[in-house]
């Protein structure tokens, strides 16, 4: 075999192998339409020692302490290395805790990578849902109502306030910074009820009422840009009015199309394809 042929053959094989890897490693289709196989994230400073990694999947919060890093949510599996790199760009401290706001793969995708060296914590319901869905990277430690992490003289509080996006959404509160990571009960693409995992349109508003009792100024939503407290107040108002509107329109005998039209014309968080597409399920829940 000539040397040229060998080089060409090798090149072909490498390309084929690359294609095969790309094919087999293709990430699951994100609900939010992110299809990137290459991580595409930026890290932004939110406050002293608190950063957010925005891009693929859900937002990751990074809280740096002198005894290690507390990470909130870890995006998709293919974002794992990029998360580690982004954290390394701001601190030498290792990631000691990963707090999952809920079960979905765009928030728990890198759990497997962190499980051997970090404690991963979620609500008991989030874990039960992951086990039921055979999701990888199931955590060892769960809680039902509240858990607090004390690391390097800093405190992070993780709380469950009730159903909404799923039946296992936790919010993560940084008391010293007056900042809240809301997870997807405050995702900026509007309320998306995951009925298969215990979500509820009916209870979502009350859940956010509980969350709003916390004293914070800044919100890191599950998806979308860092916002002010008012963002979550508005969100709560939509989550409260939306089911009430659906119930009254159903009682008035309005058609599904009419109801859908109300959402789209209202705009903002109302004009959410997730709501319109799930109108049958939402109506079924609200009838009970």
């Amino acid at each position, binding site marked *: 075999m000539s040397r040229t042929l060998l080089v060409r053959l090798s090149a072909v094989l490498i390309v084929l192998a690359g294609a095969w890897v790309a094919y087999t490693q293709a990430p699951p289709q994100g609900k939010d339409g992110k299809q990137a196989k290459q991580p595409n994230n930026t890290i932004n400073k939110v406050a002293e020692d608190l950063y957010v990694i925005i891009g693929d999947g859900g937002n990751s919060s990074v809280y740096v302490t002198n005894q290690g890093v507390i990470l909130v949510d870890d995006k998709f599996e293919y974002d794992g290395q990029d998360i580690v790199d982004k954290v390394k760009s701001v601190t030498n401290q290792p990631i000691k805790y990963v707090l999952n706001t809920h079960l979905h793969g765009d928030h728990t995708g890198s759990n497997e990578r962190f499980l051997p060296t970090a*404690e991963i*914590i979620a609500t*008991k319901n989030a*874990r039960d849902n992951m086990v039921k869905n055979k999701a990888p990277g*199931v*955590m*060892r*430690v*769960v*809680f*039902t*109502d*509240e*858990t*607090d*992490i*004390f*690391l390097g003289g800093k405190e992070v509080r993780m709380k469950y306030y009730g159903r909404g996006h799923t039946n296992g959404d936790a919010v993560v509160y940084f008391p010293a910074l007056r900042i809240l990571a809301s997870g997807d009960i405050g995702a900026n693409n509007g309320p998306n009820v995951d009925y298969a995992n215990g979500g509820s349109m009916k209870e979502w508003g009350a859940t956010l009422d509980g969350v709003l009792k916390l004293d914070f100024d800044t919100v890191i939503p599950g998806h979308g840009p860092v916002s002010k407290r008012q963002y979550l107040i508005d969100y709560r108002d939509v989550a409260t009015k939306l089911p009430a509107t659906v119930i009254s329109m159903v009682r008035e005998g309005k058609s599904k199309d009419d109801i859908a039209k109300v959402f789209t014309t209202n705009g903002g968080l109302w004009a959410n394809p997730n709501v319109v597409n799930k109108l049958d399920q939402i109506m079924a829940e609200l009838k009970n």
Partner: protein
Amino acid sequence: MSRALVVRLSATFLALGCAWVAYTQAPQGKQQTKQASNKLNKITDDLYEIEGDGGNVAVYITSEGVIVVDDKFEYDFNDIMAKIKSVTTQPVKYVLNTHHHADHTGSNEHFLPTAEIISTANARKNMIEGKQPGAPRVVFTDETDVYLGGKQVQMKYFGRGHTNGDAMVYFPALRTLHTGDLVAGTSPLIDYSGGGSLKEWAATLDGAMKLDFDTMIPGHGPVGRKADMLTYRNNVEKLRMEVTGMLRQNKSRDDIAKVVQDKYGWAPTGLQFQRGFDGMLAELKR
């Protein structure tokens, strides 16, 4: 400095250091030994109990590590590790503290670098207030579960009693419950400075009795059955009702002290009396 002098000086400092440690770490329980004295008992399958100094330790072995409930005094650490190593090569991964007292959290400092220690939020608060070493990094308010090597351990807070931060640890697959000091001895030690309550103690035990278990590892004393918890609970209520009755009859402090001493075994020099008596009178007068 001669070598002999260095050795002697070192020995002196070592002795002083030990004496200081022994003084500041002075155990609060009945056990005053500085040399560890414990026995490892098998309860069932992969669950063991270490009884002797301080509070009872539960040892749950899994294929991914050991879950330990309570860790006695600081000077018991090496003995706890030796006992665990006698039954498994697995490392200790989790230490669950039933409450803040040093006879249940004394070895925390040794475990903290390599294990996750978990307690209630109130228990940690009490440890911080008492400037105790080895405060856990992870706390919970209502329930936390640890899943390790295919096994599950459930840690629950049922309300006030011995302190305001007592958790019980439940091993569902083994139908076994570690009660912490919510069941210990025959009559309650109510630590009012740690948020304890005689009034709420029985209701706390009622909550725990809803769990489905047969075997009970008390905070101190021999392993018992679920029925023993009911006996203990009824004794707690009997004490509460009797003292409440005496207070209503305007009995003197001394008269009441004599009753709790004679009928409930509260020695005037003991912790039950010293930590619980006046607080109990104040609580029950309300």
